[in-house]
């Protein structure tokens, strides 16, 4: 593997009392990779970004970019000498400069011709040719965002840092811009670190996602890995709604409130399992006389799928099914796992009442 950026044991505290905001953070970003730091507000992701950019000074740990130590016990390279591009949540375009002057702002040391060429190329990449003479306040939010990206790409940074760059756009524009910008970054092979609290954004934009909590990384992996194989309860809940099952594991299988299920890995004794709503399906109760039965509480038809809420022994579970599933509230059903349940790591033995559906809102609180 060829890591461009390595962060090792990075620690930052804002006051001497209380826990550090960033606690021995360690990760590596590969050349050409889009890496996302995902977490709820206050998890330290923005501070990590500001440490990488050099606006904050680390109390401990190393940041190394392309073999060059940017931050260490006796080193602190100032932001202007880090060769990183930075895109802010509110874009931070210079209001007194035209679009062209904004984009050439970071191109000092180049001839006028080079400046014009590089700026034109950057603006072409984000699809904003012809806007050179405008001032930022004459642009829409989406256009301002593109100018901000063009401005940080123009000096060919070795690493691009993006701080919640899509959160100021409305929902529809956000999806389009996101996939276009991702296309540009991939096409140009630009290594990027994205910071966001939006799990959908992280999953769809990044090649790899690091889920952060309390200044530490709980899990790093591809979007599929962190979604399908959450390591902890926090990750399972933060990345979407999931059914939690308090179970007794016996090797590759476990006894759960839903009956016997297969496990993602070997385990023994009391464990907490996560089973995503789309990894379960419903069937008529009569077809499974030996499985525990549930009753349908609510059916929500959403076009391309259906969400069922079912009740069993006082706990509620969620099931996403295809749109032809015909059960109605009041029907007796059996829950059939389609995939092995994921065994979550936990320090202490989980408490039984945890079984049931939980969501990202529960995780954030």
């Amino acid at each position: 593997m060829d890591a461009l950026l390595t962060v090792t044991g990075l620690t930052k505290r804002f006051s001497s009392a209380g826990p550090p905001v960033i606690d021995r953070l360690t990760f590596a970003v590969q050349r050409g990779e889009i890496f996302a730091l995902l977490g709820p507000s206050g998890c330290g992701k923005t501070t990590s970004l500001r440490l990488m950019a050099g606006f904050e000074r680390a109390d401990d740990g190393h940041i190394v970019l392309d073999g060059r130590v940017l931050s260490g016990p006796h080193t602190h390279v100032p932001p202007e000498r880090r060769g990183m591009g930075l895109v802010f949540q509110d874009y931070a375009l210079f209001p007194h400069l035209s679009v062209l002057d904004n984009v050439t702002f970071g191109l000092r040391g180049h001839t006028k011709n080079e400046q014009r060429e590089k700026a034109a190329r950057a603006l072409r990449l984000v699809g904003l040719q012809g806007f050179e003479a405008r001032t930022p306040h004459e642009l829409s939010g989406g256009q301002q965002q593109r100018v901000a990206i063009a401005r940080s790409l123009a000096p060919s940074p070795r690493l691009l840092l993006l701080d919640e760059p899509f959160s100021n756009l409305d929902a529809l524009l956000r999806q389009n811009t996101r996939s276009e910008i991702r296309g540009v970054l991939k096409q140009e092979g630009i290594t990027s670190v994205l910071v966001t609290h939006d799990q959908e954004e992280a999953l769809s934009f990044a090649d790899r996602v690091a889920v952060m909590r309390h200044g530490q990384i709980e899990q790093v992996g591809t979007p599929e890995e962190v979604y399908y194989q959450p390591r902890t309860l926090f990750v399972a809940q933060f990345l979407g709604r999931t059914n939690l099952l308090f179970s007794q594991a016996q090797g590759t299988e476990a006894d759960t409130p839903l009956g016997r299920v297969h496990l993602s890995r070997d385990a023994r004794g009391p464990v907490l399992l996560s089973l995503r709503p789309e990894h379960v399906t419903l069937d008529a109760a009569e077809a499974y006389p030996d499985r525990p039965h549930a009753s349908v509480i609510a059916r929500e038809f959403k076009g391309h799928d259906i969400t069922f809420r079912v009740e069993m022994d006082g706990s509620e579970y969620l099931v996403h099914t295809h749109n032809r599933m015909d059960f109605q509230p009041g029907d007796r059903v059996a829950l059939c796992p389609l995939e092995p349940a994921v065994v979550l790591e936990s320090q202490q033995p989980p408490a039984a009442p945890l079984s049931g559906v939980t969501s990202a809102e529960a995780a954030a609180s």
Partner: protein
Amino acid sequence: MPDVELQEHVDASRGPQPAEPPPGSAGRSWRLREKLREWYLWGPALFVAVGVLIPMVYLVLRAAEAEPAYLAALVVRSRTLELLWNTVALTAGVLAVATAIAFPLAWLTARTDLRGKRLVTLLGVLPLAVPGYVMAYVLLATTGANGTLAQVAGLGVPRLNGFTGALLALSLYTFPYLFLNLRTALLDLDPALEESARALGYSRLQVLRHVVLPQLRPGFLAGGLLVGLHVLGDFGVVSLMRFDTFSYALYVQYTASYDRIYAACLALMLLALTAAVLFLEARLLRGLSLHRTGSGASRLTPPVRLGAWRSVGYLFAGTVTLAAVGLPLLTVGYWMQEAASIPWAALGEALRGSVSASAPAALLACGLALPLAYLSVRRSSPTTHALERIAYFGYATPPLAFALALVFFTLRTVPPLYQTLTLLIIAYALHFLAEAIGPIRTALYQAPPRLEEAARSLGRSPLQAFVAATLPLLRKGLLVSIALVFLSAMKELPITFLLSPLGFDALALKVWSYANEALFAGAAPFALALMVFSAAFVGLLLLREDR
């Protein structure tokens, strides 16, 4: 500052994880280095702190040179008590008269159906364009055997002077501070409160007494503080009116016998009185929270119908305007025409003198205010707030005491600086710094800090980033602060009086010295020029208010 750093160090060692490298020791030397690297921020801030505070220390040192017994004899005697009584009585009297003028005027313009309210409001602010000593000159030139009234109408009004003269002159030019504050307070009142009180059986007058007046207290205190500080800091009016206050005694000491120890004592007592006023205001304001408790936009109060009383309202507004704005214009106009010819050469000389000190002072003040405002907005900490507070302290210090402190300080440490234009410029800049900070601060709050960070991530050093990203957005604020300090320095009298170089002429000095010798025609052209500059100052303030 050392105390703060020490405190942090102690806290770090008490931290929960002593094994971790604490931000204390390593962080402390880093913070110091960071401050040294940002010398262009901390240097000017330090200059301001030293420039404002050290001279004050010298006042104390000067006074402490004397034998304690001698010092006690100087301070504890009936003369001091008399000065104290006069100063306090004048302050209280001006507050009372200014309130009597300002409150009805504020009520008329804020709460009634009086027509031409905008014009009346403007006229209520305009007296600020007449500096106190010009107002004193106007009153002196109007009354008495040689006054305008006697010469034009043959009215033998006794010459105004002493307490009455000082009271009238100061009230007529300071009441706009109260007027503006009370008017804003009246406009912000929630009409629902008054209506509830009426519904609960209170009469109009009872509502005023129990509901309206208590809510005006913060506005009254804010305006009253400005009036009080102006009276305590005043030198021109009391010296022209020959009224024995601390300022006047200080002036007599300085010019006649110049007993430095006694002068230092007087200045310190004046400072103590100012501190007492500031303390009292803060004390009275504490715990005073009169915000509306409800949510949503407040409705507009229906204006009170004056009916037949409308003419009384016009009469009042007209009288006040005539006294505060009309009289100065008429008087100056009359004496201009009495004068044989306009002394263009002397006028030019005085104007050149005033500008030669005021213009550099305005630039210097702006240059000092920029780093101070930047520190307080972008590096918000107890230290930077204290630095900004020092600038406001310099503004509240009576200018005569401030100038005297600078005299002592320079004579002791850098004698060649004494009676130079440089010292005068520095004194102006330090005294009026607070006026320069305001507009820059406001502009800085509107310039997002992200811009500078963006510039840094695009390869600019901190200073370059500030110049490229933030400075262009501060242009208007910088211009306003330069203009405010320039115009203030143009009309400043006591600092000019004590610190001007030999042979230096300024508009303010001319008006004062002619008026002091009852040469009313001689003073007129200089007074007119000053009123023009002051009017520009007021216009600028009003423009800012409008935004």
